[in-house]
């Protein structure tokens, strides 16, 4: 049942990537994700790239779960790093496939590492958490400056769209909604957290 669901995805879409690609549209969606965390644009990107990435990954990994993981990790990184995309430096497809290439290399490295250490399935989560981000930040997309930018994002935005819709608002969306400058929202959040600490401290006394 799972297989049929997933294979349907691949069959529904043309596998020739060069056919009918609307490059300006892809750029627009990436920018919408970068600038306003636009969930609809992200869904469109997912629809476009998901089946393609899955098709390629299926050729590189022996099982369905790993191919799905490549899709998930790649699209997660697209969500997190969309602000790093620069349309003057190359096509959106090139950028996304570069992200995918890095994810694939990381996974292959992880699998190789696991085999060498002869890790059992039981400690898989530990092995997973041991693959830290700095190992993967070794290509032209990343540099220290960009890392700092990512680290400065609130935790919620660093969080990944792991196959779920992101219901929480971004600081930018909240600012827009309340018609206030982003700086005001940031200071209100800081102030609210400080007050909360005091309140909770009082409650505990």
């Amino acid at each position, binding site marked *: 049942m799972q297989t049929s669901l997933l294979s349907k995805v691949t069959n529904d879409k043309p596998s020739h990537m060069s056919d009918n690609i609307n490059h300006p549209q892809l750029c627009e969606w990436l920018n919408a994700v970068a600038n306003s965390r636009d969930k609809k644009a992200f869904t469109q990107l997912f629809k476009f790239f998901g089946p393609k990435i899955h098709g390629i990954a299926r050729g590189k990994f022996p099982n369905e779960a790993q191919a799905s993981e490549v899709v998930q990790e790649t699209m997660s990184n697209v969500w997190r790093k969309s602000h790093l995309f620069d349309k003057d430096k190359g096509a959106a497809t090139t950028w996304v496939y570069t992200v995918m290439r890095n994810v694939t290399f990381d996974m292959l490295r992880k699998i190789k590492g696991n085999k060498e250490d002869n890790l059992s399935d039981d400690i898989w*989560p530990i092995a997973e958490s041991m693959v830290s981000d700095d190992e993967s930040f070794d290509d032209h997309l990343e540099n220290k400056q960009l890392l700092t930018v990512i680290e400065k994002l609130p935790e919620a935005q660093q*969080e990944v769209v792991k196959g779920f819709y992101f*219901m929480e608002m971004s600081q930018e969306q909240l600012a827009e909604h309340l018609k206030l400058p982003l700086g005001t929202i940031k200071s209100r959040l800081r102030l609210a957290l400080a007050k909360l600490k005091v309140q909770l401290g009082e409650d505990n006394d």
Partner: protein
Amino acid sequence: MNNVNPTLPIFPLPVFLLPNGITRLRIFEPRYLKLVKIASTEQGFIILLQSEKSEVTDIKWGSWVDIINFDSGEDGVLEIDVKCKSLVKILSINSSVDKLQFGCVTEILHWSQKTKTTKFNALSASLEAVFDSDEILNALYHDKPTDNKNWVVARWLELLPVNLAVKSTFILDHTYQDAEKFVQSIILKN
């Protein structure tokens, strides 16, 4: 329903959901497709709050959700809408062979399950405006009891761009006043 401490499948996600909160999930990992299959024929599942930074071990509570709607998106990915019916304390966790986790849980009471119908204009109005501007969110909630203070504060807590660890301080039943003050200090001008 008679089961005092039910054993339910666990989905670790960075999603903060309080009772009566609804969210949409896209499911395509095989083990979680299996979870959905189990959850839809049995008693729902548990969303265990997990961010990339925090390990699962230090969180002992979760959101017990029912699947209230599902659809296969245009891209073939399964989409489910889930509604939280209560918070639970997780007594123990076991893993099955395919890496799906199951937790033995017991329900805990939360302030968001209570109703206080005093219209408090600013927060309610602002929340209504959020629903009006977000198509998906608006469609998820058939009923929007914005005259219930507890419901309004709970939904705002879910939506606010605040660290998940901070949100988690409001899961205790007696924290309503703190939660209300916290939300107000962000949304309303002091």
